[in-house]
C-alpha cells in the first residue's frame, strides 16, 4: 500500500472510531461529574420529587417528577402527532398529485428548519392565548376524567403540559412524516396493482397493502419522534411554567419541568460545581433514556431494511 493511501485510510478509520468513542465518552464524562453531587444528595435520587439545588451544602434533588413530566409531555405530543403524520405521509405518497408530491414534502420539511426557540416563543406568546378556550372547554366538559382535571397551573397560566404537547407535536411532524413517507414509497407496486385489480377503493388499497408493509417503519419513525420529544429543551423551557411546591398530578393542565427544560431553566446554578453536578446527573438520565429509545427505534428500522 502506498504511504498516501495508508495515511488516508488510517485518518478516515480514525474518524469513524472517534464517533463511536464519542458516545461512550459522553456517558463516562457525565457519570464522573455526577457522582460527587449524587454522593452529597440528601434525598433519594430516583424516588424524590423535590428539586432544590440552590444551596450546595444541602443538595436535595430527585428525578421522579422530571421523569413523569418528561414522559407525559412526550406522550401527549406523540398522541397528537402520530395520526397526523400518518395522514401526511399517506397524503404525500398516495394522494398528492405526483408533480406536487415533492414540493409538498419540502413544505413539511420546512417545519424542521424553524429553530426551536421560535416554536417556543410562538407557543407561549401566540398559541397559548388561543388555546385557553379549548382548555377551558375540555376542563368543563371532560373535567371528571383526571387527565382533564384542573391542574396546578390552570386556569391562571397557559404554560401547561397541554400547550407544550401541542407545540411539541408540531415539531415532531416532519421527523415522523419523512421516515414514514420513505417506507410507504417502497410499497411494492405489484401489491398495489393487485389490490386495484380486485376492485379495491383507494382507502382499501392503503389498508391492505401500504399500511401492513410500512407498519414497522412507521412505528420506528414514531419512536425516533419520541426520542426527539424526550430531549427537546428550549421550546419546553419557554412554554412550561414551573409551579412552586406543586408536583405533577396527571392533568394535562399541570405545569412542571422535563429533564431538559429543568436544566435549561436553571443554567444560572452552573456557577458552582456541586449544583451543576445535580443537573449533570439529570442529564445523564436523559441521555440513557434517549439512547434506549433511539436504540430501539434504529433496531426496528434496521431490521426492516435488512429484509
Amino acid at each position: 500500500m502506498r504511504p498516501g493511501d495508508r495515511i488516508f485510510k488510517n485518518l478516515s478509520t480514525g474518524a469513524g472510531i472517534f464517533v463511536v468513542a464519542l458516545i461512550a465518552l459522553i456517558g463516562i464524562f457525565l457519570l464522573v461529574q455526577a457522582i460527587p453531587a449524587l454522593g452529597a444528595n440528601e434525598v433519594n435520587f430516583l424516588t424524590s420529587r423535590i428539586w432544590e439545588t440552590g444551596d450546595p451544602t444541602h443538595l436535595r434533588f430527585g428525578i421522579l417528577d422530571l421523569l413523569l413530566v418528561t414522559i407525559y409531555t412526550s406522550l401527549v405530543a406523540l398522541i397528537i402527532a402520530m395520526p397526523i403524520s400518518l395522514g401526511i405521509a399517506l397524503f404525500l405518497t398516495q394522494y398528492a398529485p405526483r408533480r406536487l408530491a415533492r414540493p409538498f414534502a419540502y413544505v413539511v420539511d420546512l417545519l424542521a428548519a424553524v429553530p426551536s426557540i421560535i416554536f417556543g416563543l410562538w407557543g407561549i406568546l401566540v398559541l397559548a392565548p388561543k388555546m385557553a378556550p379549548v382548555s377551558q372547554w375540555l376542563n368543563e366538559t371532560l373535567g371528571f376524567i383526571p387527565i382533564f382535571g384542573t391542574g396546578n397551573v390552570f386556569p391562571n397560566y397557559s404554560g401547561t403540559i397541554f400547550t407544550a404537547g401541542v407545540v411539541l407535536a408540531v415539531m415532531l411532524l416532519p421527523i415522523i412524516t419523512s421516515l414514514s413517507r420513505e417506507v410507504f414509497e417502497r410499497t411494492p407496486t405489484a401489491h398495489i396493482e393487485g389490490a386495484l385489480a380486485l376492485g379495491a377503493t383507494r382507502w382499501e388499497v392503503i389498508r391492505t397493502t401500504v399500511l401492513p408493509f410500512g407498519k414497522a417503519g412507521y412505528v420506528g419513525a414514531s419512536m425516533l419522534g419520541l426520542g426527539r420529544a424526550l430531549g427537546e429543551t428550549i421550546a419546553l423551557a419557554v412554554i412550561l411554567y414551573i409551579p412552586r411546591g406543586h408536583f405533577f398530578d396527571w392533568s394535562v393542565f399541570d405545569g412542571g419541568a422535563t429533564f431538559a427544560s429543568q436544566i435549561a431553566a436553571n443554567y444560572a446554578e452552573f456557577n458552582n460545581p456541586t449544583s451543576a453536578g445535580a443537573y449533570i446527573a439529570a442529564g445523564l438520565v436523559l441521555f440513557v433514556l434517549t439512547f434506549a429509545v433511539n436504540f430501539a427505534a434504529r433496531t426496528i428500522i434496521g431490521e426492516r431494511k435488512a429484509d
Partner: protein
Amino acid sequence: MTSTLSETERLASPPAFQQVSAGRKAKNALATVLVWLSFLIAVAPLVWVLYTVIANGIKRIPYTNWWSQDFGSVLSDEVGGGVLHAIIGTLEQGLMCAVISVPLGLLVAIYLVEYGRDTRLAKVTTFMVDILSGVPSIVAALFIYALWITTFGLPRSGFAVSLALVLLMIPVVVRSAEEMLRIVPDDLREASYALGVPKWKTIMKIVLPTAMSGIISGVMMALARVMGETAPLLVLVGYSAYVNWDLFGDNQASLPLLMNTERATNSMEPGSVGFDRIWGAALTLVIIIALINLIATVVSRLVAPKKK
C-alpha cells in the same frame, strides 16, 4: 362521460362489474378527507409561525442601526440599538463549528463508503452516528461542560458552544455526505484505478468533486440547523449586550441567546420593546437561515458536475 358510451363500448365493458357499495365509498371518501386534512394541519402552524415572525419582526428590521449597532448603549426598555453583536456571535460560533465538524464528518463518510464497506466497524459506526443524531442538544452541552469547563478548567466561551454544536452537526454531515458518496458510480472509481491512480487520490480528485454539490447543500442545511440551537448557549456562554469578537473568552451574544435573554428579563406585552426585540431577532435569524440555504443552492449548482 358514461352517457356518451357507444353501443360497442358498452358491450365491451365487463358484464360482472358491480358498483362499489355505498359503505365502502363513504369510507374511502372519509379517508381522503382525513388525509388531506392532516396535510393542511401540518401546513397551518408553519404558515402561522412564519406570519408571526414576519409580522412582528418587520418593525425593527428596516432600520440601519438594527444591523450596525448592539444593545450595549441602550437601556433594556429603550427603543433603539441593534443586533450586530448577536449576528457576529451566531456566525462566528456556527463557522467555527463547521470548521471542525465538516472535515471530521467527511472523513467518517469516506471511511463508511470507501474503506469500511460492510465491515463490522462500519456497521457500528453507522449505528453510532444515528444514535448521536438522537442525542439531545442539552446533553451535548452538559458533556462539553463536563469536559471543557470542569475537567480542563477552561472558561465559558463561544468556542465551548461551537464544540457542543459539533456533536449535533457531525451526524447530519456524515449522513448527507455518505448518501452523496454512495451515488457516485463505481465506474468512475474503477476507471481511475485502471489508470494507476492511487485510491486516496481517486477519492480526493474524482469521488469528492463528483459528490461535492450534494455535500455542500447538506453541510449548509446542517449549519443552518445548529445556528438556531439554543440549549448549549445557556450552559456554555453568558450573554453580552456588547459586540465581542473573541470566540475564546468572555460573554458573547448570539441571536437565540439574545431572544432567550430578552424573554427572561423584559416584558412580553405585545408592542413592548422586549416583544419587538424578540421577534426582530427571530426574523433576523430566519433571514440568515434562508440566506444560507440560498447560498447552498447557488454554490451546489455551480460545482455540480457538468451534464452533457
